[in-house]
């Protein structure tokens, strides 16, 4: 059994071996390659964006009769009415903050609950075997079908929306953390067994640190789902603080499609922001050591 990651560098005998680390490419060469890397990564999506906007405008101006243009208003109308009309912009921004705030509370609860459940399941094979089928089953129930029930049970308040966030974002965290807790290798376990370390110690010093990357993969997925959950909650309940869900419903009723598109854009921006937030947090936590 050989580890593919190993490569023999000149290893100094008993002398300081600090300079053994691989060669550092010249700063200039690196900068040039980084620039070309950015270009390679940026140009294709930019092309797709331009094509998509082109099709949008084409449909709006050429295919749609002016009387039916509200179905797909031109992009500049959307931007102008949503973000450069002061009243609408203020409302949208307020909805954005409410959604962000409640979604993050829901996500925080999911993170704590999800990690705890995964740890409990990891402690005993029997607990895992008894819980797992129901987790899968629960995952297959469309949350949309549960949302009205949650409203009946808990009222149409912010709390119910947070519950929807938790329900929709819990599973990926449990699944990914469970997977991560099993990622420590057999020889790593031997290290601890050799010194008769107990399970609490192994959890703290082996299983949890090894699980961090997978755990954060779960957080990233769930962050976006939590935003979706909050909007779905607001959309259904139509009560409590005004969020993007309530706004979307309102603009649908008013047939105000330009600002409806504006709220969809705001939702998408929020989704991307939370995804980036957890990508960044993950890098902060394990970026230094992850191979």
């Amino acid at each position: 059994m050989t580890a593919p990651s190993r490569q023999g560098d000149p290893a100094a005998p008993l002398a300081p071996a600090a300079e053994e680390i691989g060669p550092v490419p010249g700063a200039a060469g690196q900068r040039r390659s980084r620039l070309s890397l950015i270009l390679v990564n940026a140009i294709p999506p930019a092309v797709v964006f331009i094509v998509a906007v082109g099709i949008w405008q084409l449909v709006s101006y050429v295919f749609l009769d002016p009387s039916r243009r509200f179905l797909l208003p031109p992009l500049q109308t959307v931007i102008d009415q949503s973000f450069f009309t002061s009243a609408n912009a203020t409302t949208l921004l307020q909805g954005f903050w409410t959604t962000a705030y409640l979604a993050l509370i829901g996500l925080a609860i999911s993170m704590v609950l999800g990690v705890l459940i995964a740890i409990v399941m990891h402690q005993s094979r029997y607990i895992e075997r008894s819980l797992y089928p129901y987790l899968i089953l629960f995952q297959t129930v469309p949350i949309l079908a549960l949302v009205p029930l949650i409203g009946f049970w808990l009222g149409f308040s912010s709390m119910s929306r947070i519950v929807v966030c938790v329900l929709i974002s819990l599973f990926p965290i449990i699944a990914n953390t469970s997977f991560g807790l099993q990622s420590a290798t057999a020889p790593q376990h031997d290290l601890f067994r050799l010194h008769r370390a107990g399970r609490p110690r192994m959890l703290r010093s082996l299983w949890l640190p090894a699980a961090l990357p997978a755990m954060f993969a779960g957080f990233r997925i769930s962050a976006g789902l939590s935003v979706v959950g909050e909007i779905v909650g607001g959309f259904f309940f139509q009560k409590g603080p005004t969020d993007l869900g309530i706004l979307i419903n309102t603009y649908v009723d008013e047939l105000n499609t330009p600002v409806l598109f504006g709220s969809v854009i705001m939702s998408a921006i929020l989704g991307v922001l939370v995804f980036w937030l957890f990508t960044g947090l993950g890098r902060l936590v394990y970026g230094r050591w992850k191979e």
Partner: protein
Amino acid sequence: MMTVMFARGRAGNPAGQGLAQATPGESARLAFRRASLTFPDGTEAVRDVDLEVHRGEFVSLIGPSGCGKSTLLRIASGLLEPTSGEVRCDRSDIGYVFQDPTLLPWRTVEQNVQLFAELHAMPKRERAARTAEVLDLVGLSGAESKYPKALSGGMRSRVSMARSLLLHPSLFLFDEPFAAIDEINRERLNDSLIELFGIEKFAGVFVTHSIAEACFLASRVVVMTRRPARVSAVVDVPFPYPRTAGLRFDKEFVEITRHVSSLLLESHLADSREASSS
């Protein structure tokens, strides 16, 4: 805290009574008595191994790869128990260097080296002093705050050695620790190991399938057969420690390596004959 443990085989030892006259050295740091191990799936890995290793002695186990040498080390360390026969070994201070460096990637070099100190609750001040000492011994001073991903294969092996050295082991088990490292670096690591052996005076057991490595390190080379592993021959390597790199070119030393090589071939051929006749 020198507690001597007797790990008795689960299946008991049919020849247990006869052991009294076969125990010349109660002082042995590690002793196998007719130790055998058969895995639950029926694979016989080790058969009737008798072996003693004393403090200040360095024994190399050599044999074809996959023959069960590593299993023998796992038995010595207590990670596995023999299914019959006995293993006498004080498990309170064993150093065990695995085939793979097995570093924890989320810990720096220094934190990796301190792992066992944490598991045994060594006082902080002693921990810091001993860490600096072992890192210096393996030539890693200055790399304390690096993460494993920034280290070469050779450096990782050194961290793994330093980690095992931390608790002053009196028995050191090496499971082909340098198998994946190129020849030049492997020789350098062997030079370092010999130097360490001179300083720390442990009992060493080194599993390898490199004849040159086995002879250079060991005071005794034990040639093993193919699976199930049995002792097929024992060769003394009567050169004093500390040994230096130049020994590799000594005429007498080369002769010994040639001898070990022929023994290994013999045992290999005998196995093949046995396999084809049965």
